[in-house]
């Protein structure tokens, strides 16, 4: 397929994922804070900016809840806001209309039109739960329609690849930012990790609320409860979100999914992207969570994020821009 269109599908996948993640995380943060006893309501919004990788775009404006929410939901100057993400997803989908099913195009277009026709400011003031619910359902509808109407051709694979790579990075940042925050919150007297890199102890009741929010931010709370029953242990949460092979938003699950698509795309040929992805996946699989705390969770997650970004670069080099002009190597037409 055309390299440009492959790239557009890759990004359409990323943008829809980004919008859905943002909707879910703003929703969770908003509703968690409503119930929070803590007087501190600005810090979580600042951390959400970090998780979504939008701190730099937000700049040194004061981190004030209503302003951050508007920035994340409807700010057209914010390249990562929900409306911008959907607008870009739609532009990308529009450029590949002849490659995707009509149902998929309509699903993306309808979400865009629905956001454009609403009074988002009023919705946010009035009924944010309903708004975020609508956006999340629409994004899931987009995946569902894509999954049920598209053949598993190259186009599908690039879109799926964009989506899981975006999600892997997002979950990584979620764990990283939230863990650091909760560690700070716990204070030096009861650090989450033992002084000599031992497993962190179970969370205090006071922190439960926050750990639940972290899990909900990754749609993983209910699954966590079923797996770990009674405990709410920070180490378990990290293990679950990072290493659980069967959880759709865990980093390992996303990277395995990416590997599945990439292997099909490179058709068993030598591929830098496959090698890069294989290395970062191997650094996580079969890993005991205690080892990660020994290594230091933050530097480890930093490195995982960098490696995942390398994979994206390798994909771009290999599939989207492999023909610097002047270097001609035609292949036989079919």
């Amino acid at each position, binding site marked *: 397929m055309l390299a440009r269109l492959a790239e557009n599908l890759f990004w359409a996948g990323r943008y829809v994922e980004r919008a859905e993640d943002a909707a879910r995380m703003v929703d969770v943060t908003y509703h968690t804070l409503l119930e929070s006893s803590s007087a501190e309501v600005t810090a979580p919004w600042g951390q959400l900016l970090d998780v979504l990788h939008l701190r730099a775009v937000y700049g040194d404006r004061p981190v004030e809840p209503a302003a951050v929410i508007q920035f994340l939901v409807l700010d057209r100057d914010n390249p990562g806001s929900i409306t911008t993400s959907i607008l870009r997803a739609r532009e990308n989908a529009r450029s590949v209309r*002849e490659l995707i099913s009509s149902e998929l195009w309509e699903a993306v277009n309808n979400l865009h039109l629905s956001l454009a026709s609403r009074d988002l400011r009023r919705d946010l003031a009035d009924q944010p739960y309903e708004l975020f619910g609508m956006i999340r359902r629409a994004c899931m509808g987009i995946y569902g329609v894509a999954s049920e109407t598209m053949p598993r051709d190259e186009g599908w694979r690039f879109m799926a690849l964009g989506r899981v790579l975006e999600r892997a990075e997002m979950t990584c940042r979620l764990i990283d930012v939230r863990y650091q925050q909760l560690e700070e919150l716990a204070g030096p007297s009861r650090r989450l990790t033992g002084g000599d890199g031992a497993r962190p102890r179970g969370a205090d009741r006071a922190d439960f609320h926050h750990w639940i929010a972290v899990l909900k931010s990754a749609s993983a709370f209910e699954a966590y409860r079923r797996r770990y029953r009674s405990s709410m242990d920070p180490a378990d949460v990290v293990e679950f979100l990072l290493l659980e092979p069967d959880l759709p938003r865990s980093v390992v699950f996303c990277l395995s999914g990416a590997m599945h698509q990439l292997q099909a795309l490179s058709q068993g040929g030598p591929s830098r992207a496959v090698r890069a992805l294989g290395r970062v996946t191997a650094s996580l699989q079969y890993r005991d969570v205690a080892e990660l705390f020994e290594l230091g969770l933050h530097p480890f997650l930093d490195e995982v994020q960098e490696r995942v970004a390398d994979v994206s670069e390798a994909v771009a080099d290999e599939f989207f821009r492999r023909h610097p002009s002047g270097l*001609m190597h035609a292949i036989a037409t*079919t």
Partner: protein
Amino acid sequence: MTDLFGSYETGGDRFFDEVFDPEGRTRPHYRALVARLRELNRDDLDRREGIRDRIFRSQGITFTVYGDRSDEGVERTFPMDLLPRIIPADEWGHIERGVAQRVTALNRFLEDLYMGEQAAVNDGVVPRWLVHTADGFRREAFGIPVPHGARCLVSGVDLVRDVHGVYRALEDNLRNPSGISYVLENRAAMTRVLPVVFGRQRVRPVDHYGPSLLRALREVAPPAAGEHPTAVVLTPGMYNAAYFEHAFLARQMGIELVEGRDLVVDEHVVYMRTTRGLERVDVIYRRIDDDFLDPVVFRPDSALGVPGLLSAARAGNVTIANAVGNGVADDKAVYAFVPDLIRYYLGEDPILPNVETYLLWEAEQRAEVLSRLDQLVVKPVAASGGYGMLIGPHADDEEIERFRTRIEADPRGYIAQEVVSLSRHPTLVDHAFEGRHVDLRPFAIAGETVEVIPGGLTRVALRKGSLVVNSSQGGGSKDTWVLDESAPEPEDR
């Protein structure tokens, strides 16, 4: 129940009405439709209009209008009227033969002009100076071959009906005629919005357009391309007004929709950049104007085109459709000579007459035109889309004087035509049917042979009294049904 046609005015002797004769009787081919519509009330129609709007909006069937203020265009839907236009089989046979005749003659003329000995010019059928001063004439097109001489691979011949109901050709649109996507989408929408009405008629299908176009594109592939030539649609990109149609056509044909940056020319061969390397391209159905096609030959600032494309075409390694330089025959002064070209190249009488056209560099004709500008239509020879026209009977003195000055300064730059009182067709306006002017753009595909798709795009001037039907000027459209009299009568459902 109120009759939706209750206060309908037919055109009397001023306009030809498509549905009713001057005595107010329904024409035979409309009887079934009108009877069915008389059973509907306002609420029914409102509901069906609602369904139609949802279909068009959610599918993003839009075109982009560029205003003066912002550089971002506005996406609009092209409103489809609920009432279809119906053409009986014998009438369609006449149109079909007439359109095919024009396209055949124009292909012969263009092939002869750019690849042959220019017989029509040498024999004085068309003045040489006129050809060379036409806006769409491209000397760069000399020697660029098109197999079967199918230089007008797709044409959209605009027809209007005069007060006597005679179909006349108004424009040939031999460069990048658009609108076929609306023909197909209107039909799809119509069968959903008014299924019962549709099911009772024997309407000829239109959905073979994609396969027919692809077949023609393959027929014009260079001989070297072999048995399975690769064809692509070349678009300026998603911000182009007709992008929806470009994507639509690529999808209908199952071929790639490429932009200039996806193509690269090496050693006079065109390739597209794919995820697996470079793939050779044999035929390009381009929806980019000549001037933007190849920055090496035409506008050097064009980022839409492909450097080296024309040399590849001249080398016979790729076919560009429609061919470069077709615009010469879209010049409205050259149009005046099409009936002569038909006689010259085909030895036949024209089946579809032109609209009476005056050539303003001829002193006598110019003098007559200038003396009755208030009765005529004046058009710039190179414009399209209904821009820059003078409609004499609707113009004020100041505007008429402005055109007088322009004509005197540049008589080659304009033509004048008798006003054709375009036929009218009942159209749903504010819950009732009112007469609105319509034209008809049938689409012809030329490969080894010429095929005319049954029906075409009926455009409607939605503003009362307006004669301008262009989509950019507030026009709408109608599904257009060509009846098939050989098909069995459908059962009553």
